[in-house]
């Protein structure tokens, strides 16, 4: 039991610094825009979406319309549509916790959950739930701290958000080692890069993911031939 908590904490540790400091940045932004602390807390508790929360500060400040807000959210968070696909059965088996698992499926939590291996000798459901809870706790703590005492950090934290990029790079490499077929990784990389160059940083992610998914569906036989050699793992 204790070892499951320890396992979940260690798994969530890479998210800690990134989330605390991104949370602080969000809190400071809210405070500077003139919003009360409770609102930063509320947003981090019920919205809980990294980049979208930063956009939300702008939307709130300018008094954007509900339709505009919904449309921006759809656009910015669309990539999250694909995350649940890998966890439908696993989350369903978690009973009441299923709802929280779906709600809290951010980029970072998704990535860490992908790195939970069946070989790891722990209570998987409990570990996944704890990882999700720890991650949001870091985020909420950062946001409240930023909104309450913002701007008085003792050292220059510029660039600390790079730890999120580093987390994705590490998990990418881990998956590269364990996956028999590299086609998913390679097509994701090429498609994302191509669409970034083509469409620019604001609109590339959804078209890129649609193309990647299409390629992977078309290459299904080829990929399954490669992966099924090692038996139906997972």
């Amino acid at each position, binding site marked *: 039991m204790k070892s499951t908590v320890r396992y979940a904490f260690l798994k969530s*540790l890479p998210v800690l610094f990134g989330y605390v400091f991104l949370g602080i940045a969000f809190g400071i932004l809210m405070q500077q*825009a*003139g919003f*009360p602390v409770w609102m930063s807390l509320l947003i981090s508790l*019920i919205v*809980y*979406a990294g980049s979208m929360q930063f956009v939300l500060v702008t939307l*709130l400040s300018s*008094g*954007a319309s*509900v339709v505009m*807000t919904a449309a921006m*959210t*759809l656009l910015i*968070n669309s990539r999250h*549509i*694909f*995350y*649940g*696909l*890998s*966890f*439908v059965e696993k*989350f369903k088996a978690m009973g009441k916790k*299923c709802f929280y698992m*779906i709600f809290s*499926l951010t*980029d970072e939590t998704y*990535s860490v959950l992908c790195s939970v291996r069946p070989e790891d000798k722990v209570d998987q459901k409990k570990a996944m739930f704890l990882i999700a809870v720890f991650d949001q706790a870091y985020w909420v703590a950062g946001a409240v701290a930023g909104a309450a005492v913002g701007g008085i950090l003792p050292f*220059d*934290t510029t*660039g*600390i958000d*790079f730890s999120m*990029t*580093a987390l*994705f*790079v*590490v998990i*990418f*490499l*881990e*998956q*590269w080692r364990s*996956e028999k077929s590299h086609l*998913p990784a390679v*097509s*994701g990389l090429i*498609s994302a*890069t191509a669409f970034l160059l083509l469409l620019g*940083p604001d609109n590339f*992610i959804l078209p*890129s*993911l649609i193309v*990647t*998914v299409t390629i*992977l*569906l078309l290459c299904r036989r080829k*990929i*399954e031939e490669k992966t099924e050699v090692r038996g139906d793992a997972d």
Partner: protein
Amino acid sequence: MPIKWEYALLLILTTALVTLLIRAVPFLLFGRGQKMPDAAVYLGKILPPAMMATLVVYCLRSIHLTQYPSGIAELISVGVVAGLHLWKRNTLLSIAGGTVCYMLLIQNVFAV
């Protein structure tokens, strides 16, 4: 506060609801009792590496290749993360090393 708090609350709830709905799509489609279609199971299995690649590109999206020194610190630091990880395979070390490298670079070498 720049706007009325009731209206702020409305916008916050809208964002929360839309975000939750997006995350819930696979569960609304395939979570109801019956078996998931083969194609969806297959996608769920193979998508994580593709998503991870996409997220790395997403994180680096604001690099301008034509503007010096944009992107140099990022590329060096991604290299440090990858190098450390291939060498030691210690997740925390790779992330900490790369992040410290990035912070030192943009705060000192490529400071604007």
